């Protein structure tokens, strides 16, 4: 992805894939962790919807709460986490659901893909067995039927000679192949929502593109909503229909992909975009713009903009009052929301 200007590709499909009814609806999701130094707020009042067949990207730096958000959706956080708010999967409330209920949903209606395909598969079981396991758990099919379904799934995700590969162990496959196996496993039960947490970060660039193509293609074909967690704006531009930008546990901006790349409003978003290298830029043109400072670790969410300390446009208002995640005052573009008192695209800044 590096070295080329991100091209928004997914945004075009947004209207076509949209059904208008969200399969996953997140409202006021907050996560705090109890630690030995006191509680830490990791996610604060996050709300978003994802529709069938849609790809929603959640972007931000390390530590901005995107992975915690992803884990909290399926109840995968450790016991030290307290989750409040609401996560509705096709009308079923997941926050506060029992372990048994969540186990019935995970791997079935709500599936995950993780960053490290090297370590995310169990090294002592064949890939076939690991796919069969999820099929037998949720669909109660016979071992034989599950095995042949596993071969079909490996074919679906583009693994050559699947009938042989199904009996191989993870260490016999390449990183890209392993991630394909993870995708096959995640799609085994036809999930409504697929959460992909940095699915291509650990892969070679060429393999990345292939995996992203596969995800987008399968998502559209199977009508699976994809929540893509990433820090890579190139990946976002490649496959996302809409983007949620997170900073220090909050959503700071959300918009259709094309819109976000064309007219970013929050200074954090512009900062992220400024940190992406562009083809043709020379070293003499100056270094890539980075955002100074680090994501703060918050014990309490302050009544202020959490980005103010790193923001070039911050004023006193930003430090004393929390900007709401509000739509731009522009009819027809209400899908673009941002939490900023001095948006980058506003007249006073131009």
């Amino acid at each position, binding site marked *: 992805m590096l070295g080329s200007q991100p091209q928004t590709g997914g945004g075009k499909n947004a209207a076509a894939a949209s059904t208008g009814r969200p399969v996953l609806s997140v409202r006021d999701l907050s996560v705090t962790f109890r630690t030995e130094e006191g509680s830490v707020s990791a996610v604060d009042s996050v709300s978003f919807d994802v529709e069938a067949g849609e790809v929603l990207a959640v972007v931000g730096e390390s530590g901005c709460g995107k992975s915690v958000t992803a884990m909290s959706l399926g109840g*995968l956080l450790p016991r030290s986490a307290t989750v409040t708010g609401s996560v509705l999967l096709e009308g079923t409330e997941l926050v506060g659901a029992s372990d048994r209920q969540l186990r*019935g949903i995970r791997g079935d209606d709500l599936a995950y893909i*993780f960053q490290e395909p090297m370590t*995310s598969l169990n090294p002592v*079981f064949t890939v076939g067995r690991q796919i069969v*396991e999820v099929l037998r758990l949720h669909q109660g099919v016979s071992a034989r039927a599950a095995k042949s379904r596993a071969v079909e799934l490996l074919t679906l995700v583009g693994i050559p000679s699947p009938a042989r590969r199904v009996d191989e162990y993870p260490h016999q496959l390449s990183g890209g192949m392993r991630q394909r196996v993870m995708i096959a496993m995640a799609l085994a039960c036809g999930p409504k929502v697929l959460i992909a947490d940095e699915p291509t970060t650990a892969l070679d660039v060429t393999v990345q593109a292939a995996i992203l193509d596969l995800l987008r293609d399968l998502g559209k074909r199977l009508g699976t909503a994809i929540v893509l967690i990433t820090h890579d704006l190139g990946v976002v531009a490649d496959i996302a229909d809409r983007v949620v930008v997170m900073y220090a546990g909050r959503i700071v901006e959300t918009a259709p992909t094309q819109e976000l790349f064309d007219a970013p409003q929050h200074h954090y978003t512009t900062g992220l975009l400024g940190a992406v290298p562009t083809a043709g830029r020379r070293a003499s043109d100056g270094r890539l713009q980075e955002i100074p400072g680090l994501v703060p670790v918050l014990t309490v969410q302050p009544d202020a903009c959490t980005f103010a300390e790193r923001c070039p446009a911050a004023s006193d208002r930003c430090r004393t009052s929390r900007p709401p995640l509000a739509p731009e005052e522009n009819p027809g573009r209400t899908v673009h929301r941002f939490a900023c008192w001095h948006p980058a695209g506003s007249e006073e800044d131009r």
Partner: protein
Amino acid sequence: MRSYLLSRLWQSAVTLVLATIVVFLGVRALPGDPALAFAGEERDPASLAAIRAKYGFDDSLLLQYWRFVSKSLTGDLGRSTRTNIPVTDMLASALPVTIELSALALGVAIVIGVGAGVVAAVRRGRPAEWAANALALLGLSIPNFWLGLMAILYLSVATGLFPASGFVSFFEDPISNLHHLVLPAVVLGTGLAAVVMRQTRSSMLEALGADYIRTARAKGLGPQTVIGVHALRNSLVVVVTILGLQLGGLISGAVVTERIFGLPGFGKMTLDAVFQRDYPVIQGVVLVTATAYIVINFLVDLTYSLIDPRIRLAGVPS
């Protein structure tokens, strides 16, 4: 898999040959003239020479070694200088006792050690872990002989729950056989159980933090499957290694335990032979022990490869 097996077999064979050389030289290196030991009270030079000639002590070491090996291979390990019973016969009656005792102790160690280790890892930071850790520390610290004596004192003499000593063959009376072996097996197994517990706990903790455990949970698998299948299978490689290393300790522990509980096993035979300077018996005992080590290590390596496909398939291009 086959080439792995063959290379491993070859290594075992070489080790075994080296072991026979060490055993052979070790006995020859013992201070004193073996002929004197054979002769007993006799000090007549003529009869000593006769003994030397009879047992071939005058021949070159190489020839003597060859004779030792070729005889051993046909199952002839000589005769006890005290009782004149063939060493092979003595081993045949003593070994089954020790093998049964060690197997039972191993079972005790695996069941208690792996069980407590898993509980300690899963219940990390909670009372169950503290209890398991405390038990492991006790198990490591308490010497075999003391535990054995206490067991006899409280569970045999005071309450009569178990016999204090003696042995009944399994084929004569299986129930009585097990009844006699419960205490010795538990006593012998505790130390090993403690080691296994600590190893299981630490490798389970590592496995439980692994990415594939997160994947297993994300698939909707229940805690039994996540812990008992996905995490445990990965932890077992390390546990099996430790077991293999500790099995040698089990053999020497058996010597003490058999003595305490008066079991007619390998340990008792070894001690008697050492006290009575019964060289052919010592030689046989050491040879059998060395062979046992080598066989156990071979089996441990085989077990690895059954547990971990990365070892089984090493060298096979993917």
